[in-house]
């Protein structure tokens, strides 16, 4: 057994940016250390994942699948991974690992003061930071998991998710990403935020790359619908400097993702009539989220794509941060046609010639 810990709290001093937590959770460790409101939790590290594979004797099978991945048709994947997935689901967990997870969950219950505390269980892959690959939405997320047994089952599900169709077929620049290395996965366990509204926030305008704007997409309930794309969110464009809300496109919403106690699961449920046409986030919350996002961007030194939630009590939570990968990689070109004295700029302008190149400015949405 290596020295690497199997479990790491998000607020552990070594969590910030720690690769053992995978991309997503290492970022959240960083956010927690920087004082942002991240739901508390812990990561079952990549070391734990590797330890499980070793003790279950699944390493060779993993290598075989990974190497085969680039040649696989989508229709072949299921057949090709069946044995591996069965192994991950059924092989006994090493006793020390299982007990470690159970004791941490118990400690978590104590920390938040709730028995069977509902948690969100998310995969956090090592490969996420690879060459800017976002892997957005490719890995598994399980919401409202309560109790240690359920947690253990979903940890396995996350591990198995490493070999799902989406991940095995995820390509970047024509290459199958999964075949590029021996990527492991961390399983993040976080306090479930019962969201009144949630969504994503880009610290630039994703439509034209304009870095002076932030675009917030929001929906009623949990943010899953915005991420998955089965709910059309309301959209707010905010000035990054002044936090003025420049544009509001409010989309009526008839269903939201929320926890259904009867079914003991999160599902799409109808929204009562009076909320359907109402705006799901107040202007104050839009501005608070924008201010938060601006600080996150400054802390991380590049445009970010942020998942957030507002709880029923109105608290704002950061659920996920990752670097924006489309516009940030483009080279920025100069706006001005030619360097000139300011007076010359004005004289030229009043003669009918603009200061900026028409093509250089971000496209107007």
């Amino acid at each position, binding site marked *: 057994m290596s020295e690497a810990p199997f479990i790491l709290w998000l607020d552990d001093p070594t969590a910030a940016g720690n690769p053992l937590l995978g991309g997503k959770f290492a970022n959240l460790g960083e956010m927690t250390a920087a004082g942002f409101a991240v739901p508390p939790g812990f990561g079952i590290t990549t070391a734990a994942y590797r330890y499980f594979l070793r003790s279950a004797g699944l390493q060779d099978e993993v290598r075989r699948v990974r190497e085969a991945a680039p040649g696989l048709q989508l229709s072949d994947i299921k057949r090709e991974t069946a044995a591996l997935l069965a192994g991950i689901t059924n092989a006994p967990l090493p006793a020390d690992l299982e007990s470690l997870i159970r004791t941490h969950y118990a400690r978590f219950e104590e920390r938040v003061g709730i028995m069977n505390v509902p948690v969100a269980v998310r995969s956090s892959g090592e490969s996420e930071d690879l060459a800017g690959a976002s892997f957005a939405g490719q890995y598994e997320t399980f919401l409202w998991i309560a109790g240690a047994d359920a947690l253990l089952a979903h940890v396995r599900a996350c591990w198995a998710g490493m070999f799902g169709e989406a991940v095995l077929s995820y390509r970047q620049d024509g290459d199958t990403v999964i075949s590029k290395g021996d990527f492991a996965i961390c399983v993040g366990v976080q306090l479930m935020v019962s969201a009144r509204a949630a969504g994503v926030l880009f610290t630039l305008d994703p439509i034209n790359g304009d870095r002076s704007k932030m675009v917030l997409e929001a929906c009623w309930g949990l943010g899953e619908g915005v991420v998955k794309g089965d709910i059309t969110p309301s959209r707010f464009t905010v000035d990054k400097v002044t936090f003025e809300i420049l544009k509001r496109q409010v989309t009526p919403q008839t269903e939201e993702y929320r926890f259904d106690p009867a079914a003991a699961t999160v599902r799409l449920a109808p929204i009562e009539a009076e909320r359907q046409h109402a705006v799901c986030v107040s202007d104050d919350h839009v501005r608070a989220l924008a201010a938060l996002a601006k600080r996150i961007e400054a802390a991380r030194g590049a445009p970010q794509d942020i998942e957030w939630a507002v709880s029923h009590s109105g608290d704002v939570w950061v659920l996920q941060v990752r670097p924006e990968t489309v516009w940030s990689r483009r080279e920025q070109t*100069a*706006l001005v046609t030619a360097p000139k004295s*300011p007076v010359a700029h004005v004289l030229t302008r009043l003669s009918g010639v603009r*200061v900026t190149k028409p093509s250089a400015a971000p496209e107007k949405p």
Partner: protein
Amino acid sequence: MTKGAGNKNSATQRGAELPHAPTGRFLSPFEMVAPKGAEGWESLYPYYALISAERRPMEEGKFWFFDGMHNPEPLYPFDTIMTENWWVAASQMASRVWAIPLALGIDHRIINGYLYISPNAVTDLNQIAERQEHFGKRAGYYFENWDKIYVEWVEKAKQCIERLKSIEFKPLPDYEHETHIYSHRGLYSSYDLFVSYNRLIENLFEMGSYHFEMLNLGYGAYLTFREFCQEAFPGITDQTITSMVSGIDILLFRPDDELRRLAELAVKLSLTDTLLADGTPDAVLRALAKVPGGAQWIAALEQAKDPWFWFSTGVGYTHSDPVWMTDLRFPFIAIRTYIEELRRGKEIRRPLKEILETRTRVTAEYRALLPTNQDREAFDGLVELTRKVFPFVEDHNFYVEHWHHSIFWSKVRELGDVFVAHKFFKDREDIFYLHRNEIYGALYDLMIGWATGSEPRGETYWKPIVERRRAIRDSLSKWSPPPALGVPPASITEPLTIMLWGITPETIQEWLGVDPAAAGNVLRGVAASPGKATGRARVITDPEQIYDIKDKDILVCRITAPSWAPVFPRILAAVSDVGGMMAHTAIISREYGLPAVVGTGYATTTIRTGDLIEVDGTAGTVRILEEVAR
């Protein structure tokens, strides 16, 4: 490019050629019919200000828009001196003085008593090139020497005001004053009266010329900076752009600052009960004189008055706009509002340090967002230049429209008194029903009567004319001028047109799309100050009506004048028919942090007092939620 003039059917073709050019056209100025009771209104105005049948193709082919910003009401014949002044003074700067390559002057017409204006563009390429050469040298000189020229400008303006103050009008004496005999001057009261009138008119045109000496260039620099920001940060609001360059201690805020100080002094001297008691300002002042500390407060008021109370409650272009100096109602309303705020423990001083810190931070943050060093250099240069020119842009209003013009109107009233003394008029205000050139005639008539001993014809001639004109003007004031007439231009190149009136292809298209008769319940305009508010509308079409404003009203007017600032603490939001982002008011609306939508075109004709309306100063919309009975 198709030229607009005389080509009635070109609108759609032009639209096809230039995707952003507005399509369609407005009613022809020839289709405007005099409102009932106003027949013969043309006689109130000089021939050259009227639409002329013999130049029909030109008149009809031009784009005329209503200048409600300066003249929301039908013009008084005398008051045309203001519009006639800038017809030349502003126009000559673009056309002949700077030779701005693309812009000539701004033409004027009076239609049913209302001022319509039309910018002239240069389209000939050779001419543009020729003008460019003059322009670069001349405007370049002014920009390079701006600070020095502005210091001199302030001196010129103050001297002009001093000379204006020294002009006196007195009825002619029964016997010529002895000093005129024993000094063998050879010139007498009749000559002095004539000269005083000449000086008065010259003095107005002198200040009128200074008014525009630096204005086009100031706006030009701002326009360049604004456009750069809009390209670099698409969607950035005008108020944010302005906040990066506008001054924090501009003169226009001084009168209001004086009122805040007087409110503080009233609290300090324990005079608040006396000041808050019901009664006219005169009654309050009488009461104050009798209480301890009252004399000190009155002395402070008197000290603040000159020059700060030479402050018009309108834009200064109309004699009828009350001036604080002669009508204390407005400053008293404001002082009472501030006293009430102080009693509630509110801070009433403007947070200058905070405003300055915000300006510094906002500018630095936008700068950091620019893609390259070259862009940051251009931005820095434009910020610096615009900040250099902005004190003039912001402060000239106080020197010209408030301080000078308010005194000017008071001088015209003095002359009115002379005519009353000589039985030409019943009331001093009647003088405003005569055009300034008619006054030359009347004055000579008066001098003849005085010199010869005959009854001057003016004693019987003018009174019925004044009455007739009063009735005509009253009828004209009930007419709602459409925002535009004629054929929209393919593009707008004149900087003042864009900056001051907010006329862009988009506004024109918006106006074209609105049928005023069937206007829906949403009005669109320029988002002048962000935020949202819902409340009852108070429609103001006459400056007198501002005293009717109640707490939590939404002000709806043709134009919000900057000097209405003192009512702003009472209202929830402001809406106007006319104005762009630099309309005299927009700055102050933002200063008060109230949502404002300007340039809606039809707010005062669509909305009624009492309607429940929602103002979205961020989106630039006004929604009628609930109508009172029509």
